[in-house]
């Protein structure tokens, strides 16, 4: 029994031994798109923060809601004021784990399909989600990309009857990060 525990514990701690460090970015791209009979709604932010720990396969990202740029300025105002309430909930975040994580295969080149499970928080509502994505190591950069859909109703984003037809039930979100290797946490914290 003791041996078994030891083996399990070492399994938990082992990845730390082969430290490959963290990859992060402060200029990640997140965009979303929805099509309705009246018009397409599209917005993008290039100010997402993201980090992926290659040791543990854990990743997190965070995006300021006010950084989303819409084609129509009025839409942008409505998005922030009426729907996601950016003053109250300034950021959307995700914290999760790569389920079928194989750091080794990253080094063989080419994109690796993965599934990530974690907590997506939008408009102050936290939900457990599972999304498919790809990871790829390329020229010192770790490229993370994912596509998934978000239903505003799931995150208590209220859409009044008057404009319900103009806003899709489900919004397609695209995440695309190019992360570079990060110095250990201790070093960044001493500033």
């Amino acid at each position, binding site marked *: *029994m003791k041996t*078994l*525990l030891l083996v*399990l*514990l070492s*399994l*938990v701690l082992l990845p730390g031994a082969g430290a490959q460090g963290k990859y*992060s970015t*402060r200029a990640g791209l997140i965009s979303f798109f929805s099509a309705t009979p009246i018009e397409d709604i599209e917005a993008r932010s290039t*100010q997402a*923060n*993201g*980090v992926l*720990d290659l040791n*543990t396969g*854990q*990743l*997190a*990202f*965070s995006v*300021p809601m*006010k*950084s989303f*740029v*819409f*084609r*129509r*300025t*009025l839409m*942008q*105002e*409505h998005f*922030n*004021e*009426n729907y996601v*309430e*950016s*003053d*109250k909930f*300034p*950021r959307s*975040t*995700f*914290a*999760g*784990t790569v389920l079928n994580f194989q750091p080794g295969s990253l080094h063989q080149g080419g994109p690796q399909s993965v599934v990530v499970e*974690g*907590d997506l928080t939008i408009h102050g509502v936290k939900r457990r989600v599972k999304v498919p994505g790809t990871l790829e190591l390329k020229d010192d950069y770790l490229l993370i990309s994912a596509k998934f859909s978000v239903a505003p109703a799931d995150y208590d984003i209220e859409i*009044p009857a*008057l*404009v319900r037809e*103009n806003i899709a039930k489900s919004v397609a979100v695209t995440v695309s990060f190019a992360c570079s290797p990060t110095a250990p*946490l201790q070093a*960044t*914290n001493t*500033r």
Partner: protein
Amino acid sequence: MFRRFLSGGLLGAALLAGHAAQAQDELLQELEAKADSTQAAPNFTQATFKGTHIINSQSVETPGQGTLLFLIQHRFGTLNSGAYNFFGLDQAVLRLSFEYGLTDRLTAGIGRSSQEKTFDGFLKYKALRQSTGAHAMPVSVTLFSSAALTSLRFREPERPARTRWAYTYQALIARKFSPGLSVQLMPTLVHRNFVDTRRDQNDVYALGAAFRQKITKRLALTADYYYLLPGATADDMRNALGAGVDIETGGHVFQLHVTNAQGMMESLFVPRTTGNFFDGDIYFGFNVSRAFTVKGR
């Protein structure tokens, strides 16, 4: 043995899962801490007011780059004009205007009021934007200047063109105190090239104040008021006062209000308001704006 192995495995799995959940939250916290400490872009306050106008006043808001705003402003006659005039609804003055966002901060506009057949043109520039973050700014300041030309035919004697002009200069200083409450102060100078009497002032100074309180996301109460600084104009005229509601739908803002001023331009309502609000000289009116995206970003 098998059972032991199973329980051990379960324990291990539980440990592993707990460890993972904690670690991913730590990762997020680390990320957030870094984002807070290195946040470069200031967080600008948005939507201090719903529209580019409050009631009579301009607000600090400008339509964004490439947005064309079509604005219809209406003031009926006075409420106390009696049933014969359908309490003012038989009579109306109108202002139509277009406002175009040259950039996110600079707007040019043109307008036409039926009152004295006045044309106007204006520029509005967001000089400072309220923000939090790295370089926090407590207020938004928008500079406004307009020129108005009356095209009314004067008889005996016909007036030369230069006497038909009036100019307005304003600093609109606003702060959004909470998501619901916004307050704006408006030091104002109206210069009129020509005034009716020798006693009247060509330069009229006033201090305006306006507020907005949201009731729901799409409904707000508003008020604005102009205090005329002491002088002949202040002695002869009234301070313009308005109270109203803003109703926002998709691309429209409907503003319904009551005011003692019938003019819808600064050079008309600041120095030339005669109605006594509390005596029933109240004009019911509305502003409706519609935004068109001419050039997307």
